[in-house]
């Protein structure tokens, strides 16, 4: 399958890239890892007039922690880099758990976290993780930069809040005020399939008290689901069996699964309940082992 014809530019500076998008008048598309866009081009679901390849832009392949604990992921940081990142293992367990579960090893060598957020697939792993973490996306455009909270960034299935002349240059994960804990679990029929159901849990702990909890789901609704009630149910509490059960039930209630070839709606809801329970129990047992 060949994509339909497009013009191709691979600018060497961000300003040039933005200028190209401006000149593209909404008919241009940004190409980063290409692991979602190129398949869409081949299937001709997407047929942009101009492709602006940002792979030659310098200095965007980073992921780092600011002195205050804020984590920043550049637009060209590949999934494989995050999968092998000691920094995430040490500082951000939810992201560390999710990185190896994104797509397959070949896709992870090319695909990017920021690109995954922009693609806004309801089944995208990173959108759920960044939602659970309360992250933001930095957009760069002709009028400078602005930060968009993830809840406002993803405006619908495969839709984001970027203006046609803006490029998502960075994902920002706010500094954890307490001890970060949590995880990510995904059920897929085989590696690389879309998630049957997945749950991201991101906690901040002060001692054994949860000071912040974010729970987000993917694969079980028309877009990424922010299970805010489930998160709120944990806030200010210790992870007792009762608290865990309540949060898992609320997360399952927040899911909007549909029966399809991957499973029945009831089954997917149960998977969400099980995953949230497992992640939270694992947080408890990890803390007990450390004590």
């Amino acid at each position, binding site marked *: *399958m*060949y*994509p*339909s*014809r*497009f*013009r*191709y530019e*691979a600018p060497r500076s961000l300003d040039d890239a933005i200028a190209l998008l401006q000149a593209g008048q909404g008919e241009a598309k940004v*190409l980063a890892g*290409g*692991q979602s866009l*190129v*398949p869409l*081009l*081949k*299937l001709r679901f997407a047929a942009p007039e101009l*492709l602006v*390849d940002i*792979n030659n832009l310098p200095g965007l392949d980073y992921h780092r922690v600011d002195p205050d604990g804020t984590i920043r992921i550049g637009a060209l940081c590949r999934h*494989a880099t995050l999968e092998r990142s000691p920094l995430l293992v040490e500082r951000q367990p939810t992201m560390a758990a999710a990185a190896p579960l994104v*797509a*397959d*090893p*070949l*896709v992870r*060598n*090319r695909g990017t976290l920021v690109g995954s957020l922009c693609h806004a697939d309801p089944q995208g792993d990173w959108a759920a993780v960044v939602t659970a973490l309360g992250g933001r996306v930095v957009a760069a455009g002709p009028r400078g930069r602005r930060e968009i909270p993830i809840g406002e960034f993803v405006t619908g299935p495969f839709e984001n809040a970027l203006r046609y002349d803006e490029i998502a240059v960075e994902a920002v994960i706010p500094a954890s005020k307490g001890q970060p804990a949590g995880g990510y679990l995904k059920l897929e029929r085989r*590696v*690389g399939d879309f998630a049957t159901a997945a749950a991201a849990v991101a906690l901040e702990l002060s001692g054994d008290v949860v000071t912040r909890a974010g729970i987000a789901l993917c694969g079980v609704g028309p877009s990424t689901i922010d299970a805010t009630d489930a998160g709120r149910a944990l806030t200010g509490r210790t992870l007792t069996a009762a608290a865990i059960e309540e949060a898992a039930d609320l997360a399952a209630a927040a899911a909007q699964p549909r029966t399809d070839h991957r499973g029945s709606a009831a089954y997917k809801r149960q998977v969400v309940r099980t995953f949230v329970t497992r992640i939270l129990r694992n947080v408890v047992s990890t803390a007990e082992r450390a004590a």
Partner: protein
Amino acid sequence: MSPLFEEIIEEPASADVPTRRVAITVNGQRRVAEVEPRLLLAHLLRQGFKLTGTHLGCDTTNCGACTVLVDGKAIKSCTMLAVQADGHEVTTVEGLASMSELSPIQEGFKDEHGLQCGFCTPGMMLSATAMLAENPNPTEEDVRWALSGNLCRCTGYQNIVKAVLWAAAKMRGEEPSHEGAA
């Protein structure tokens, strides 16, 4: 008798179609081509450079049959534009053997019967090559993980895993054994 119709053959649109010159090092050799930006790397390798060892299985970024190494990293060549490989190094299955010597990976696949129909084999071998460059001492689990983006429809995974472990042992200078793997 004059024809009622005469088909007018226009010049092909080639002048209007923008192309780009790319220089790619393929299996150690510099290759230059003039490509349309929409050409996929897999198609340049197969139809342009006639390196047909790179297979196209699904065309939808699922199967991994088109796996090649770009700067040492295993990627799906059906999901990368040929223009994006400009200035980079590409290794295809044709680049694994040196002179008349099979690479240890190829030997492993031969010795452990790591293939039936052979369609997925080039992709499998390149994924395995990339993994062994990073991790010379993989466990069975490591091998399965590294090959999880490559599908085999002959269900030959057992022997594929054995073949990679065989190659790993050989590359470490050990005597590869048929036992103990997978």
